[in-house]
């Protein structure tokens, strides 16, 4: 961290500076950085921490009330009161700095986004927070118990075979815990669902987005999975294309935002 390294990172704008890292949404309105359609401080924080972790080992973090601590923990970070690193959330901008001291900033130009679409999406998320299930349901307990796999690819091993998502087998088929999988793979199939074809959990936002994209991916270590495509991904999916993953909002229900890994097309 001897000099500034500024990059596009997981759909965000990030800059590693001598004192830490600044990460901002790439979306702006009148020059002010605003969150993308499935992003917030939590997703920015996880994205920034993953970039910082490529440079140094992060031992402990002090977070704040704008960040979902379950998500940070699921991603393998230790959260304490007086952590080595502190996450600072900007007051009026979709910007986070992760430093060993005071808040930092970095001037960077983003991409202007449509104000009306942004406002519609913000309203949809607020409304969705009060939604309740009327049928199929992933409970908070189920969501929490699968968080490390969903957000960090924590996996299992049975002999030479890597397993993800985790399974609860018995006898000599019982797998053991294994390190998280690398976050990349190849598209084996894909679809884009119209708003009418998407589950009800997405019914408020899918029409704004023009539908939702899903990819069927073979991860580099072997397991396969299905993933949403990040809402602000602009590249089109195709069989054989490589994908990486980034943490984003999936949907909200019962006052709880569900997060998970979404695909970015390389």
């Amino acid at each position, binding site marked *: 961290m001897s000099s500034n390294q500024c990059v596009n990172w997981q759909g965000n704008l990030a800059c590693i500076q001598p004192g830490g890292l600044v990460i901002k949404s790439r979306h702006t309105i009148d020059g002010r950085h605003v969150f993308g359609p499935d992003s917030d401080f939590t997703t920015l924080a996880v994205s920034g921490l993953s970039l910082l972790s490529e440079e140094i080992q992060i031992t402990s973090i002090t977070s704040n009330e704008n960040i979902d601590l379950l998500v940070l923990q699921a991603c393998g970070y230790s959260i304490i009161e007086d952590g080595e690193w502190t996450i600072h959330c900007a007051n009026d901008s979709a910007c986070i700095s992760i430093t060993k001291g005071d808040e930092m900033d970095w001037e960077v130009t983003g991409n202007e986004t449509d104000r009306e679409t942004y406002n519609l999406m913000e309203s949809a998320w607020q409304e969705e927070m009060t939604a309740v299930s009327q049928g199929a*349901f*992933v409970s908070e307990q189920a969501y929490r118990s699968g968080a490390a796999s*969903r957000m960090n690819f924590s996996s299992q091993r049975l002999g030479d075979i890597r397993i993800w998502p985790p399974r609860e087998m018995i006898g000599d088929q019982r797998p053991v815990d294994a390190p998280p999988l690398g976050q990349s793979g190849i598209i084996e199939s*894909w*679809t*884009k669902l119209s708003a009418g074809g*998407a589950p009800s959990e997405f*019914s408020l936002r899918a029409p704004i987005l023009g539908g939702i994209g*899903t990819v069927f991916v073979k991860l580099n270590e072997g397991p396969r999975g299905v993933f949403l495509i990040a809402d602000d991904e602009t590249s089109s999916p195709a069989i054989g294309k490589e994908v990486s993953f980034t943490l984003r909002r999936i949907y909200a229900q019962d006052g709880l935002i569900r997060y998970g890994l979404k695909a970015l097309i390389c």
Partner: protein
Amino acid sequence: MVDVAVIGAGQTKYGNHALGLKGMWAESAENAFASIDGDFDPSMVDEAFIGSIAFGGGQIGNTAALLTEHTGMDNIPVRRVENACASSGFAFRDAWMAIKSGQADIVVAGGIEKMNDLSPERKRFWLGVSGDTEWERLAGLTFPGTYALMARRHFHEYGSVHDDLVNISVKNHLHGLDNEYAHLRKDVSFDKAQNGFMVADPLTLYDCCPTSDGASTVILAADHVAKKLSEDPIWVLGSGAGSDHLALHDRPSITQLIASQRAARNAYDQAGISASDIDLAEVHDCFTIAELMATEDLGFAARGEGGLFAREGRGRRNEGQVTINPSGGLKSKGHPLGATGTGQVVEVFKQLRGEVESSRQVRDATTALTHNVGGSGATCAVHVFGRDLK
């Protein structure tokens, strides 16, 4: 061991039904009882198995008891069977096994679903309940999405194309046109089906079955009873079933259904026949790609040649070796989830007895098959039927 026959079968019309669960079941059961040639009374039934997902949550618990009490089957052992869209295919298998085991002589297998009394929003909450909720639903998938992934992969691996699916859609709508029980009785042109509204790319509206209300009822009997009650019993020559990983991502291949292959193999082996002996098949075409894959999994087409099979029109009524979905299938006849499996048996029963509308009759049919799939293929029941005991 005892042989088992279907001696009666009936159903409601599928579609947007004015009747509720009890009314639909009563109509279906009454039609089935009326189809029995001999002197039959519902009190003669020993046992009943009724398939349903209990869509919408209107009557999840004790569905079977509620329904049978309205149709004269008082105080007998009954239960609801749930295996997603294969619920009544498995109810039929359970009924067959009850007779095979010697524990019962006359058994009712049926199915029912009420889907269209829900708001669109609530309906979509229920349409994804049979996948791996925790991993597939959180990735935005309901079944249109799941089958769309299968379709695109099949196109990639085998060179099938969307027009192959269009051919299936057009064929099934044509087959269902004269079926008085069908939900969507409309002649759909190739051009219209080709250019339908995109639901889950590459699947359009014309690749997707409708959501239907409906009920179906089948009466099975042991051979010694069947011969007394029926002049023309339809014999169950083979019953096969299988299962697979629930989540698509846990399966080694997404372009074939292992559960279907296993179920078919077991049913064919029991019947002592092969796919080439089948004259007509009611297959589970919840999406057109599902029929394409079924033609391969059931052995009507070689692996990877389901697209060619559809392109050449080999499943059209009375045009090829086998007629696929003479009822119109789920695409045209409709798909009231829990009722579909035994609804397929109703069609086979009538076809083999020569009792469907003359315009729909498969000529000289002696052997038939039903194929009922749960969800994206986690469960499957296949049955083989014949006019004669082999």
